[in-house]
């Protein structure tokens, strides 16, 4: 360590906050692991259970039982975890007993990132050398394109997790550029294994919504179910074929459940749109929300159920009419300093 000459006592006092987090040696971590295993067996003995089959969940339960704590923050309560979870990986000391660091790029500061760049560049040079050899022998260059559509590179956060080091956006973009250059070379297939470590497959997402087929009950009547929601209301509707236009909500008729005309109009809108007013029966259950919210939820549920009875073109018409879209509007929260979501307090001149 450095010894300063001709300075004040204030400067020589150790600045605790300035130095980074504490570093741990390998030997220290090993000792902690041994102590943890011994402690686990003692704990199992105390609880009267088998020391061999004592899992982490058992440890957590035992500690919660032996040291009950009413603290709100779960991480402030006493816990007994494996040392590898308690002491993070990157904080281990990176040099040996004689002081020589283990990694040859230690003095750069970002050793894992720069060693990754070094390796990738080495693969790049190998591929170029191979290519030059083949051009010297006058062999044709094969251009086999990799499947670019179904793969993506690792994100910055995933790369940080892999390297256990913080990266800047600039570093990350440079690494991706280098990978792109490597992939663009004709004979990049040689290093396929290496490249696959940094690419992930993106599953092709199905855009189409699957319309369920009709189900048939005991009498042979076709029916289908649908679910819908609006604000806090949740509804399920079962629409039967060969019906008379009877609609039952939570066991009661709609005239009794929805006295207001507007709500009944909402319920009938899908049927009226498709021109099937007197042709279907409906039984629905609804909970939560208010009067209008329940009506909107049942409307959505019935529209979803009717998709199975109807052609694809009519489904598209329903979608464009907005019958199949979940209404995203919910109650806006109240903000501090205001009386309501938008209403401000009364302004007084004095």
């Amino acid at each position, binding site marked *: 360590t450095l010894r300063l000459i001709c300075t004040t006592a204030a400067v020589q006092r150790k600045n605790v906050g300035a130095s980074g987090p504490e570093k741990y040696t390998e030997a220290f971590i090993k000792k902690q692991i041994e102590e943890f295993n011994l402690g686990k067996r003692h704990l199992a003995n105390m609880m009267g259970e088998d020391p061999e089959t004592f899992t982490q969940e058992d440890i957590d339960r035992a500690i919660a039982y032996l040291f009950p704590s009413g603290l709100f923050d779960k991480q402030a309560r006493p816990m007994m975890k494996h040392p590898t979870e308690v002491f993070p990986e990157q904080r281990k000391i990176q040099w040996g007993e004689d002081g*020589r*660091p283990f990694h040859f790029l230690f003095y750069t500061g970002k050793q894992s990132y720069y060693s990754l760049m070094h390796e990738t560049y*080495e693969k790049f040079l190998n591929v170029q050398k191979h290519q030059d050899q083949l051009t010297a022998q006058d062999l044709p260059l094969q251009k086999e394109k990799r499947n670019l559509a179904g793969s993506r590179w690792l994100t910055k956060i995933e790369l940080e997790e892999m390297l256990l080091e913080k990266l800047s956006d600039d570093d990350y973009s440079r690494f991706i550029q280098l990978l792109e250059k490597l992939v663009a070379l004709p004979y990049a297939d040689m290093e396929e294994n290496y490249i696959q470590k940094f690419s992930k497959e993106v599953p092709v997402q199905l855009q189409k919504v699957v319309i369920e087929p009709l189900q048939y009950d005991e009498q042979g009547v076709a029916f289908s179910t649908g679910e819908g929601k609006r604000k806090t209301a949740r509804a399920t509707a079962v629409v039967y074929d060969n019906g008379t236009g009877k609609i039952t909500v939570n066991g009661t008729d709609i005239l009794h459940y929805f006295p207001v005309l507007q709500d009944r109009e909402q319920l009938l809108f899908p049927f009226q749109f498709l021109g099937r007013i007197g042709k279907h029966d409906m039984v629905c259950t609804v909970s939560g929300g208010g009067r209008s919210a329940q009506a909107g939820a049942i409307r959505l549920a019935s529209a979803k159920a009717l998709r199975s009875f109807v052609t694809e073109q009519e489904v598209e018409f329903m979608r464009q009419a907005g019958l199949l879209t979940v209404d995203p509007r919910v109650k806006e929260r109240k903000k501090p300093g205001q009386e309501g979501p938008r209403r401000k307090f009364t302004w007084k001149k004095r």
Partner: protein
Amino acid sequence: DDKLLTEPLSHPDFFSVKELFTLKDLFDARVHLGHKRGCRHRFMEPYIFGCRLDQDIIDLDQTMQHLQLALNFTAHVAYRGGIILFVSRRRQFCHLVESTARACGEYAHTRYWQGGLLTNAHIQFGPGVRLPDLLVFLSTLSNAFEPHVAVRDAAKMNIPTVGVVDTNCNPCLITYPIPGNDDSPAAVELYCKLFRMTIIRAKDKRRQSEAVEELR
């Protein structure tokens, strides 16, 4: 143990560094070629042999002497188990320098130099870091044709430096300057080969001496 450390110091060329290179090798690797006359640094004038068609030619006799001193010094540092850090900010040779360092078992830094690496090491790396005992510059200039920050920092931290100085570099703060070309790939490959051979030789000699001591 004392004998191991004091014995090499009695010979002027304990590791026989002179036989690693000849004047012809330096000439073939185009080490004598400098930059144009307009780029010439005032303090490099003693090392320049002359100027041909506006291009400076470096005096290879002086280069031989300086190179021998520098390689001897690196060999002694490696013999005593010192940490050697290769520094170069040239993008073309970054990979070569890093591979050389790895082959020797020493360390390299050919990337962006963060300000407090040497001067603020205890906070950047942690308490108890060991700083490099020797800095070897394959090119003293940074990407912006200015003197590399590490030259000044090493002088501040009392770390000896060995550096290849071209005709546009400032040789003042470097303990063992080697006037020579730092731009041609052939020259840089020659330097890397020489440093690698000296360090490996010194380490082998150390291991042999230790084995001989243990047998006694």
